[in-house]
């Protein structure tokens, strides 16, 4: 309980960081709170007295799903905070506006943590909307008109997506009051019971709207247009926060939707997810083929990954473990790639892949991170993304979803070829960096080393305690 209350520490520390006159001091607060937050999360998770723990009048819950996402989000946030701290430490001129930046980042992680811990669908919705409101100025941080336009697009799409999800909840509420005679309550455990009953048209409409609405936060088609522009224009740590922390808060919301879906609605929700997933994968593959911008390429790959996750969730229990493993691995891959892309951009002063060559020689460490990140992105062994995709594909075969399986494999092949064709010359081509030495300071590199280690560990050997946690989450996605 004490540990969980400590999760609210960032909210308390945010105003202090906001009024901090010195940028470096604000980043110290950001890093310090991220560390304390991580420790508090570990204490809370370790000392949890029961597998499912309700608190604050049942509005919040610590179960296997929230534990996995809480750990994941806070590890990622700690890494991103230490990257920011390292960057400002080695480049003090970047300290301008860091008080506001740190405060908003802390508010962002508080809202994400609360979304993850919420046991009430509307609380999750409110917290996701809060993450959007807080992320808008973060996307704009230090940018000009391009960042402003991107933040506007992000805000508009997110708001409309979340409005759709809210409309979906209104449909669910109508279904509950009209047909089943249940009190309208959105507590997860109560909704799980309601979901076992017969379905009706309001409930089916509600679930589809919620899936499409929350899909917007993940960048799923048709509401994906905000993602490449926002990820491209935002500062690298903000992109990493959106692609990992916010993405996982959105993924958790989708997981919760599946957990409350009863057998009567399962096929519809599964089909909707499969359709949205395949559409997203197809759109992103062709965009990867067309783009010459490496930051956009990673952004399109994020849409592709969201598509893989949606297809996996659509498959059902046979692929559930693969989806959970993929979500965890994917978060580390994107954090490594977006943070490295920022370094590459600041060295070459361009995002055009044709202008960047010989990365591995010009910037050996960043080149290595980029190369390994791309291999993991493409689903090479031994990374968790490989095993995750394999389990999802085997789930498709077991479920006799031949058409989806063929389309899934074909799109992945196109993505693989398009990414390799663009990125491999960038990494191993003739060096273009000139005589200017690359900035290889240690501290901003530290979180990437940590993320890479975690990524490899998860791919090679999942510790039994973590494996059991992941299996519990996977089981919760299946029929009850």
């Amino acid at each position: 309980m004490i540990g969980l209350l400590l999760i609210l520490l960032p909210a308390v520390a945010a105003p202090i960081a906001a009024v901090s006159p010195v940028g470096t001091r604000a980043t110290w607060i950001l890093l310090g709170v991220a560390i304390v937050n991580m420790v508090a999360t570990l204490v809370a998770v370790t000392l949890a007295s029961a597998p499912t723990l309700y608190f604050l009048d049942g509005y919040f819950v610590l179960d296997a799903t929230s534990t996995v996402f809480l750990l994941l989000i806070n590890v990622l946030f700690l890494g991103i905070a230490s990257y920011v701290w390292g960057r400002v430490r080695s480049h003090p001129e970047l300290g301008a506006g860091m008080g506001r930046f740190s405060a908003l980042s802390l508010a962002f992680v508080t809202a994400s943590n609360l979304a993850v811990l919420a046991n009430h669908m509307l609380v999750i919705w409110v917290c996701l909307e809060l993450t959007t409101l807080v992320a808008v100025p973060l996307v704009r941080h230090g940018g000009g008109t391009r960042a402003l336009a991107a933040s506007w697009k992000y805000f508009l799409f997110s708001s409309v997506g979340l409005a759709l999800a809210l409309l979906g909840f209104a449909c669910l509420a109508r279904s509950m009051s009209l047909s089943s005679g249940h009190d309208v309550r959105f507590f997860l455990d109560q909704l799980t019971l309601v979901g076992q009953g017969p379905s009706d048209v309001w409930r089916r409409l509600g679930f589809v709207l919620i899936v499409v609405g929350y899909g917007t936060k993940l960048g799923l088609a048709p509401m994906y247009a905000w993602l490449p522009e926002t990820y491209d224009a935002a500062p690298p740590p903000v992109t990493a926060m959106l692609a990992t922390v916010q993405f996982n808060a959105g993924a958790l919301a989708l997981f919760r939707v599946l957990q409350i879906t009863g057998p009567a609605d399962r096929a519809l929700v599964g089909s909707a997810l499969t359709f949205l997933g395949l559409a997203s994968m197809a759109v992103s593959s062709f965009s990867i083929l067309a783009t010459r911008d490496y930051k956009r390429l990673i952004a399109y790959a994020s849409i592709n990954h969201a598509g893989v996750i949606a297809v996996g969730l659509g498959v059902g229990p046979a692929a559930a473990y693969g989806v959970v493993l993929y979500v965890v691995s994917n978060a580390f891959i994107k954090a490594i790639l977006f943070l490295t892309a920022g370094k590459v951009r600041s060295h070459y002063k361009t995002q055009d892949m044709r202008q960047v060559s010989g990365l591995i020689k010009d910037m050996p460490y960043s080149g290595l991170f980029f190369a390994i990140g791309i291999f993991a992105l493409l689903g090479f062994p031994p990374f968790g993304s490989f095993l995750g995709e394999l389990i999802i594909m085997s789930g498709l075969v077991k479920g006799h979803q031949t058409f989806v399986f063929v389309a899934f494999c074909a799109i992945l092949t196109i993505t693989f070829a398009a990414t390799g064709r663009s990125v491999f010359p960038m990494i191993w081509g003739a060096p273009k960096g000139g005589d200017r030495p690359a900035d290889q300071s240690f501290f901003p590199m530290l979180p990437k080393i940590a993320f890479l280690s975690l990524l490899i560990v998860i791919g090679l050997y999942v510790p039994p305690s973590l494996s059991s946690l992941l299996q519990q989450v996977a089981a919760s996605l299946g029929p009850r």
Partner: protein
Amino acid sequence: MDGRRTRMTSLLISFLLVLILPLLMATWRASLLGLALQGVLMGSMVLEHGSAASVSTGFLLADLFFVRGLLVPWIFWRILGRQTTTARNDVIPANLASWLMVGVLVVIGFRFGRAMSVNHPHSTIGVAVAASGVLLGFFVLATQNSPFSQIVGALRLENAIALFELLPPEHHPPLLIQIGLTLLFPLTLFTLAGFMQRLDAAALEKPAPPEESSL
């Protein structure tokens, strides 16, 4: 009971008119007046329902009358007044096809309302008006590039969803969540207003070169 139903129907039909007319009048003042009237009409519907007096109902009424009915038009009226904008503002393209499309969307809304309320015919018109509002909100969002028109589209969508939530059978979320939902809307509104002040439609359309990111 019949008197109350008639008054509710009148309010819903007024809401539908407030949805359609500003689309045809094509001035920013008409759009803002339309949004304000939507808030006031929804507030009147809550009063007409005769909801039990509670803190939750108080928050709901404050949201509808004060925030949607007053704050929304006041904020954007001030911003647009300062920006010396011309009176004309097309929320949908000004041509016959668009006006026809508005009619088609309203018909679809009503057909949807009838199809979804077979067992509860008294709620047909409410569902129909809310569905029309959602469809028209999306139509505005899909056809416009200018920030103000997109903001109007988003707020129309928000109002249509709010109307749908007000339809009987009545249900109020727990007080804490009602407070959260009520407070989120002004926050969203201030963010939209911030964008309205900063954004310039030309800057959005003009491709800009990548900037040096700060971090």
